[in-house]
Structure formats: C-alpha cells, structure tokens
C-alpha cells in the first residue's frame, strides 16, 4: 500500500478515507472498508474542524524528559474521530475544535494539535 501524504509524512493535513461503495468514513489506513469490505475508496482532506469529545492531561509520559502533554479526541465534521495534541488549556469536551499542525511530536515531528475554534 502507498504511504498516505498526510501529517505522518510531514504534510500538514488530516486525510479522511471515504468508501466508494457504502459511504463509510474512517481515519487510520485500511486495505478494506470495515463495514462493507470494499477496496474502492478515496482519501479526502478534512477541513480540520469538529467537536471535541475528550481531553486528557498526561502527567506520566513514556519519556520522562517530555514533561506533561495534553491530548484530545475530536470528532471531525467529516465523521471519523481523530487523536491530537492540545495547545489550548481551555479546550474541553463539547467545544468546537480546529486543527493546526505543530512540531510538537517526538523529536520535533509535525503533529495535529487542537484548540477551540476561533470566531469566524
């Protein structure tokens, strides 16, 4: 399978996969639609906005030197739930959230990071 050109490859975008047969949407790479088994699907860039459904402040991290980090689950407007960092102490479940891409991952890699959606 081809590596997707999204944030995991350094391209600041969240890709959502859309099944051509049943319309199911998902986030992590898969060879088949888990609902209908189809292998006909396409990647669509997400708007990066959605509903924050969970936030955690992680105090005990895998690498002591990292210090505490915050993570969130955001249900994208396109459907799937994605995990990201948080760069807004005020972000809480129930808030509208918007993504940015920041070099905050292990060894400075680009990762999705969420904050409350600003007034548009």
């Amino acid at each position, binding site marked *: 399978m081809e590596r997707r050109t999204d944030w*995991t490859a350094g391209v600041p975008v969240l890709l959502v996969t859309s099944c051509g047969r049943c319309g199911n949407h*998902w*986030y*992590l790479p898969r060879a088949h639609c*888990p609902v209908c088994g189809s292998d006909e699907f396409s990647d669509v860039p997400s708007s990066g906005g959605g509903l924050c*459904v*969970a*936030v*955690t*402040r*992680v*105090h*005990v*991290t*895998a*690498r*002591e030197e*990292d210090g505490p*980090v915050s*993570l*969130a*689950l955001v249900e994208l407007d396109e459907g*799937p*739930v*994605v*995990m*990201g*960092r948080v760069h807004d102490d005020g972000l*809480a*479940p*129930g808030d509208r959230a918007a993504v940015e891409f920041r070099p905050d*991952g*292990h060894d400075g*890699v680009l*990762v999705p990071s969420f904050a409350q959606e600003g007034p548009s």
Partner: protein
Amino acid sequence: MTASLTGVGVTGFGRQPGPDSVEWQITAATLALADAGVDPDAVDTVITGYSTVASHLMPADLFAERFGIRPAVAFGMSAGGATGLAMLAQAARLVSTGAARHVLVVAGEDRASGQTREASTRVLAQVGHAAYEVPLGGTVPAYYALLASRYLWTYGLGPEALASLPVQMRAHAARKLGAQFQKPITVEDVLTSRPVAEPLRLLDCCPVSDGGAAFVVSAAPTGERSLEIAGTGQAHRHQHLSAMEPGSSGASLAAPRALAEADLSWEAVDVFGIYDSFSITVAMLLEELALTPPGRAGAYARAGAFEVDGRYPMNTHGGLLSYGHCGVGGGMAHLAEVASQLRHERGVSQVGGCEVGYVHADGGVLSAHVGVVLRRGL
C-alpha cells in the same frame, strides 16, 4: 462444548523481585497441575502467553523445556490483556474436538521488577498506532483517560462517578491472600491520589506486578472440583482507539456469543470477573455488557452491587486494580477467582450457592474481547 476446567493456579501478585518470567510460569503451572490432579507428563498441549519483559519468539517451547515436559503441541499467543482468556478458549476448542486431552495454559512475568517503569510504559504504549498515535506522546493510561473524559462528558458526570469502582476492588482485596494492595481506600483517597492522565488518577489505575497464573483444560473432569467451560465468545473489531466505534467495542458481541454457546442468559449468572485495568475499563465493560445502565456503573458500585452479597458479585479477589496486574496472568486471576467461587471454596468471600460464572477480558484499548461462561460440575 465439552471441555473441563480441571485446574487453576495463581501466585500472589506484587513487587516480588527474584524470579524471572519463566520461573513465575513454572510456579503457576505447578499449582494448576496439582489442583487438577494431572501429572506434568500427561500434558499434551502447552499454550503460553507473552511476557513483555522476556519477549521471545517461542514462549511455549521456552517454558516447556524449562518445566521439563515434551508436549505434542506448543505455541504462544498474544491478544493483550485478553490473552489469558483467549488461550483458555483455544484450549477448550482443542479438547472439545479431540485434538488434545490436557492443555496447560500458562503465563507469568516479572513485569514490576524486571524492567524500569519508563520501559514498561513505553512497551505498553505500542498498542497505540505507530504512525498516528504513538508520536503524539500517548500512553496506555492516556488512551483510557480519553475514554474516561468522553464517558464523563457524555453522561454529565464528575470524576467521583468512577471512584467507587476502585474502592470496591480494594475492599475485596482486603479479604484475599496474595493481593498486592489490601489497605482499604475511600472515594476521597482516589480523588486526591496523584494524577496519571486526567481524569484518571493513580488509584484509578491498576499497578504493575510480578506473578503468574495457569489453567489446566481437559477433555473430561478429573474430579468433583472440575468445572464445565460452558461457552466462550470473542470479538475483535479494532486495534487502535482511533478506529474504535463508540459504544460498540466488541464486548456486546463477545458476551452473547459465549452465553449462546452455554445456552444461558444473564439471569443465570451468579458471579462475575470483569477486566478492570482502569476504573473506566470496568465501567465501560459493565455498561456495554448491559449489566448496568449507561453512565451508572459507579453508582452501582456505590450501592454495593459488586459486593459478595450484591446483585453482581464481581472480582472478589480485588481485580487488576488491587490484586494486581502481572500482564497476561493478571487477566487470568479473574477466572481463577470465579472458579474458586463456583467450587464454593472462597470462605468469607463466598458468593452463596453460585452455580454459573461469567468472565470477560479485553486487550489493547477495549480492542480484543473474550467472554467465558463457567458452570459448576454436577
């Protein structure tokens, strides 16, 4: 299905430096075979759970050689925290089809003493997606903390809603020899313990332990204490949190499969063993199994529903939260405890007149599910 659980063996859990993973497996296997009244050389099949400390390509061969047996069939299995029950389910299939007579299922690990906390956290975090989750800096407690945050928000609850579950597990452990933590705790203690991954605090999380557990699964009973493995059921719907379908992790599929095979319904079940790696784990499992209404597992705990004399006597050994968690063996201790209950050998913690037990384990992030129905022999 015709499969008998003829023997169980569980060591004490805790920080107990000295033995390595295979030595814990040997101790547990010795206990289980003695319990079954089965000679080591009568074992024709060995299934061994993985150890994170002593990762090995051939854990069953490694164990069998050191234990001093030469089985016809031996293999390792890994399904995270569900491994122990998945091995038991596989053993039951092997004996019920005539492919094996006595299967020794064994796991053990010096998970607390054999590695640093950092190493343990890092290894376990690999249940996260290597490209999409691990680089964010998450840990297993962080993944479950996200589930807890969503749960509390969904039902409009505060963190105290989950705190009664670890308090109940500790009360059970106080009455169980071999438990890692026995000093009673309060809701206040849970809420003021140090934050690990908010909203989860230290006492919402199971400890890391050294210890082992083993089962003997046989084609026929070896005595009156043998139990019937009446049904097993599994479900594997995702690996990663980012692929989990909210409200349908797989628990609600595995349990009905096990109950259907046993031709029983929840009303018949007298005693429970439900995986409790975190307070949120056991809450979500109880609710997805439809034993308690959504958002109410903690309230049920507060009301004593999981006490020995409650509506759903559960984890009467103290669970992972207080008996301890040595990896694969941790999820096997629930089944060993339910077996002791069904044999009516639990003394002060005996659930009166119990005949049928249900045990459920999950691995990963509510990823792999195995349910087992045990029935007291006639």
